[in-house]
């Protein structure tokens, strides 16, 4: 760790002292525009890139320093993810957002060693909320365990506060990503008295016949889904085929975008999903986006994803990264920040409702603040429901808070176990 700090300081002085170095802020994007998960990867990458382009075009960068974007294709494949990481790690990447829980798990120890901050927004390792162990990893504003808890809290609301005797099936992508909510749902099941049935779907998830046969046999009251990519429309189609009541089928925020419900047509009407941020084009920022990025022809990809759920998420991720960079510039009084400074900015990030409104995204995301003890933000999420006739997602609840005490307790156990395994002494940086 000492060596890393030393190296980071050295790098910092080099960047500040070296006038020959072109001063840019490097925001890499580990995207996937190919493979079975491209349907989710493309809009996210487009939104991420478009927002950064907007900041460059409209504001001339962050604090006067232009943003430099690079993109590396991972195809949601961990080996290629590692290759991408190796290709950018010496290029002062300010923050990594791999959009893959598998790649996140691989990069957590490496980024800790190399001193590069990583932001896994709504995915990745949940116990990274404990910033004393995971100094370089952030997962604000919400994580999987929050999502699982929000779904249960929502169902509790629907059932007058009791899930006693109910049966909930979890249909999950059989990978690190999909297995992540199981401990939380199991724990909550003990508290609230529902029975949890876990049903795994092997990647990529086009084959779900036997799983839905099992669901038919088990007759669960609710089906909760942790799916991604091609698994989502397949599951919704299968649910429609067996006439499972769609309003009792709830997906996580990665299973709730237009790409997931559109292929099913009217059968998907009433399907619900978590929403960690608002969606649609009714935000003032889109006026600027239209003017500076889209009309100027500087959009990423084909430009047809603007305003979709995952595009909004990519934009949100970029917005949080830019705000963290601004915070870092304020803390250190330096415009050309280093990855180590960026980490400080992320660790002290504060998002208020006023700030969101000022950025042209009022009520888009929750207000939250990050601290060393809590890298996870507020954890609140909303529930959205698909209206197949109108072809749009409607938010049907306000922000629902998760059972944060339980999640923090579980995250503490898990992160301390990780610290013990890897000889980390839990401590806040700086």
């Amino acid at each position, binding site marked *: 760790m000492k060596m890393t700090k030393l190296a980071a300081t050295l790098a910092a002085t080099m960047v500040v002292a070296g006038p020959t170095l072109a001063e840019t802020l490097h925001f890499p994007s580990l995207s996937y525009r190919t493979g079975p998960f491209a349907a989710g990867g493309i809009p996210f990458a487009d939104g991420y890139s478009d927002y950064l382009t907007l900041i460059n075009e409209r504001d001339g960068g962050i604090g006067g320093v232009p943003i430099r974007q690079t993109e*590396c*294709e991972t195809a949601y494949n961990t080996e290629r993810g590692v290759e991408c990481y190796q290709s950018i790690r*010496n290029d002062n990447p300010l923050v990594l957002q791999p959009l893959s829980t598998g790649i996140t*798990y*691989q990069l957590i120890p490496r980024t800790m*060693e190399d001193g590069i901050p990583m932001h896994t927004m709504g995915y990745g390792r949940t116990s990274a909320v404990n910033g004393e162990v995971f100094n370089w990893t952030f997962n604000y504003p919400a994580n999987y365990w929050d999502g699982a808890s929000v779904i249960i809290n929502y169902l509790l609301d629907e059932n007058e506060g009791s899930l006693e005797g109910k049966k909930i099936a979890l249909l999950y992508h059989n*990978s690190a990503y999909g297995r992540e909510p199981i401990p939380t749902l199991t724990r909550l099941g003990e508290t609230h008295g529902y029975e949890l049935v876990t049903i*795994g779907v092997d*990647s990529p998830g086009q084959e779900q016949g036997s799983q839905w046969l099992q669901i038919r046999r088990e007759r669960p009251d609710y089906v909760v889904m942790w799916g991604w990519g091609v698994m989502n429309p397949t599951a919704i189609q299968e649910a429609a085929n067996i006439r499972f009541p769609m309003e009792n089928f709830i997906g996580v925020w990665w299973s709730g975008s237009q790409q997931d419900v559109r292929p099913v047509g009217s059968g998907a009407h009433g399907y619900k999903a978590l929403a960690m941020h608002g969606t649609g084009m009714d935000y003032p920022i889109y006026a600027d986006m239209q003017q500076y990025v889209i009309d100027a022809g500087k959009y990423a990809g084909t430009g047809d994803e603007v305003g979709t759920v995952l595009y909004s998420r990519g934009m949100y991720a970029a917005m949080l990264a830019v705000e963290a960079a601004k915070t870092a510039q304020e803390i250190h009084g330096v415009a050309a920040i280093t990855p180590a400074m960026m980490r400080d900015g992320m660790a002290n990030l504060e998002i208020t409702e006023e700030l969101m409104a000022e950025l042209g995204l009022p009520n888009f995301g929750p207000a939250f603040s990050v601290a060393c003890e809590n890298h996870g933000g507020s954890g609140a999420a909303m529930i959205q429901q698909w209206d197949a006739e109108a072809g749009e997602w409607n938010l049907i609840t306000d922000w629902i808070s998760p059972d944060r005490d339980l999640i923090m307790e579980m995250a503490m156990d*898990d992160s301390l176990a990780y610290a013990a395994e890897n000889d980390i002494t839990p401590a806040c940086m700086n």
Partner: protein
Amino acid sequence: MLYREAGDYKTSYVADSQTFPIKFDRYGYYVLLGFAFLVMPLIINDYWANSIVVPFLIYAIAALGLNILIGYCGQLSLGTGGFMAVGAYASYKMMTAFPELNIIFVIVLAGVVTAGVGVLFGLPSLRIKGFYLAVATLAAQFFLIWLFTRTAWFYNYSPTGMISAPTREIFGVPVTGPRASAVSMYMICLCFLVACAWLARNLTRGSIGRKWMAIRDMDIAAEIIGVNPLIAKLTAFAVSSFLVGISGALLFAVYLGAAEAGEAFGIDKSFLVLFMVIIGGLGSIFGAFAGAAFLIVGPVLLKLLLVNSLGWPTDLAAHLEIMIVGALIIVFLIVEPHGIAALWRTIKEKLRLWPFPY
């Protein structure tokens, strides 16, 4: 001119039956070894080591292993990914259960465990052949992955089912985990590759290898002349799985650092290694290296060229990469069905006569 054996007198049987009987070849081999061990560690940078050379070395071991089974013994296998997973999970279990055990022994023992599993799944080969055996090994692939994703004991009950390699050191230098430097990773993979290649080469040119080849060429005839098919086939499965297991352990512990069975060792891994063996050349040690280089280094170089040098969009480059590699595979199979190794043999023949061909 080059590769001329004129004047290269052998005075003993040992000298005559050595691996590189031609002096030019032998010296080339020594120079290459010296370069790999002495010069490469000094000049290699992190990106090259981590993204190109280390995966090449690891996959070359897997291709060597599969080449013994398919190329030398003629037993078609589609279970390579599953056997690599056995190596990875065995090394993970040993690394966590016996933290004191040296990583070299861990990897070798992981190979031994995989050899055992390979023999078990090789048993059907005594009764079934060809495509039917391929289907049986395909079953092994799916069964093993299913086992590793469903049985929590294999991943030490971690909530996500991921296994991650702790840091292990050799002579105080970390070779696994995030603190391992590129050079140390390169060196351990290189040592294993050289040892494995030496083992494979010497087994295949000895009596065991001859038995394998007799079984491959015609198993009934081999049985008539006294080759025991039970022993020959099962030793082929054992040695092949041993090498594949080592490569799986290295891939997980040294290269990836963290893995999950379905994603890292899926059926596509089996096909990747099979393609390496077919493109490199069946029944050739050099072919295993050439095939691994073609399928591991080729795509990365192509990506570097298209994305980093020409600045093309990443998705276009990724799609082009699939198309170009696919087209090259087809071209190779049409132009040189016996793989790169056969191409190399032809070049060698030509070089022998160069510059005065008759």
